[in-house]
């Protein structure tokens, strides 16, 4: 059984359905990319997985166990397995880069502070920010902030890393440094679910691409299929429009 299995997952914002019968499976070590026009439900899917939005119907299985999103206890357990990186970084503005990375492992997971700090320094070094450890978010560029956010997510030692349009809020010249960081994680075999508009990057790192539109999964396949020979006209239209420029 795949590590993450999503079956017939549906969610609403108020009365508006935003996810409709979404099916998706992610194997351990796999990198799955979700693409699609804005408003298609890509980011919403990640919010539902982390319990930030309650699903209306459907099932999510992580490591063979179904997640009951109505139970606070089950939600805590599933959040231990996921870590999410947001489009707007969402770094804690009142904390340094280092504290952003260490806070959850020390405060939430109650791990040894010295050990956590050593790991945090390693992670920040890995994402190329050894020299920015004591900087506050508003003293860093968007690319640096996003790399801190990635380090913060990794410090939670997640089974699956969820990346929600992590380069969309960045200036163009800062996108590469963040994508390079994600490539590093891909080499480490990190399981990732990536929502992205960086098509070239998706084609390069993803083992599977999911095309979503209007809250539904329209087509799933390897990058070669989705980008070169899409089976649905909806996907073909999208890919043609986005690859034209």
């Amino acid at each position, binding site marked *: 059984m795949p590590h993450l299995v999503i079956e017939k997952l549906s969610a609403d914002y108020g009365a508006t359905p935003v996810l409709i019968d979404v099916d998706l499976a992610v194997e351990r070590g796999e990198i799955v990319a979700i693409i699609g026009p804005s408003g298609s439900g890509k980011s919403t899917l990640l919010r539902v997985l982390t319990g930030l939005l309650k699903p209306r119907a459907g099932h999510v299985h992580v490591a063979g166990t179904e997640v009951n999103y109505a139970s606070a206890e089950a939600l805590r357990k599933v*959040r*231990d397995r996921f870590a999410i990186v947001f489009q707007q970084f969402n770094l804690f503005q009142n*904390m340094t880069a280092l504290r952003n990375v260490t*806070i959850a492992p020390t*405060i939430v997971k109650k791990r040894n502070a010295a050990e956590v700090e050593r790991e945090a320094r390693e992670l920040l070094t890995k994402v190329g920010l050894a020299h920015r450890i004591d900087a506050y978010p508003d003293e860093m560029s968007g690319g640096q902030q996003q790399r801190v956010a990635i380090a913060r997510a990794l410090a*939670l030692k997640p089974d699956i890393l969820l990346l929600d349009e992590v380069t969309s809020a960045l200036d163009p010249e800062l996108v590469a440094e963040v994508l390079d960081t994600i490539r590093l994680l891909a080499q480490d075999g990190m399981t990732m679910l990536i929502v992205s508009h960086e098509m070239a990057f998706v084609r390069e790192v993803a083992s599977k691409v999911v095309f979503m539109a209007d809250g539904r999964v329209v087509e799933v396949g390897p990058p070669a299929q989705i980008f070169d020979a899409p089976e649905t006209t909806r996907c073909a239209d999208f890919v043609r429009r986005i690859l034209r420029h």
Partner: protein
Amino acid sequence: MAALLEEAPRFFGYYNMLFLGQAFAFTALLSLVGCGGGFVFGFGLAVLRSERIVRFAPLRWVATVYVELFRRIPFLVKLMVIFFAFQLAGFDVSGFVVAATTVALSASAFSAENVRAGLEAVHKNQWDAAEAMNMGGLTALRRVILPQAWRIIIPPSMTYSVGLVKSTSIVSQIGVFELTYAAKILNQKGFSAGICFGTILLLYFALCYPLNLMAARLESKLAPSRH
């Protein structure tokens, strides 16, 4: 002016000073207990109203109704209601308790709004990030939200507290011995209104001005600006 100077030695005699000193202490204590207690209670109300912390909606509604109601009742009316409520309930309490309760209940409703405004001014993505990493609502509040919110909470809260110190003069209406009441008594004893109320004017200023200084200090301590 000459008349003022002439009665000054008599007015600033030992017993009058003791009298005014007690009244000053009463007003100061009333302000401190009322504003302090009110802020703590109001803080609790603001937390109760936060969807990110309290998932049980009826609890949020109760807090909202309380805040909206108490913000809209004049201080004097609140004072009378509380005064008679204690009497009806059969509690024989001192004027200080009635006054302090009124000040605290007023302060709580307004403090709750100041705190709520501060909490809501912090971007919701901060809550999202905290929640996604399994931080509980109260932990997120303490570690992430409040450190960013104090800067917004403190200035209006202090302005309000100063306003409330001034409002405490209204409790003289129920015969509580505070600063304004003391001035009235001295006035009735034959001292001129000018010297009686002129003196408490300075005393009110002496009470409120340090509050403003304290606000500035509190702000720089709780919400240090790094720039």
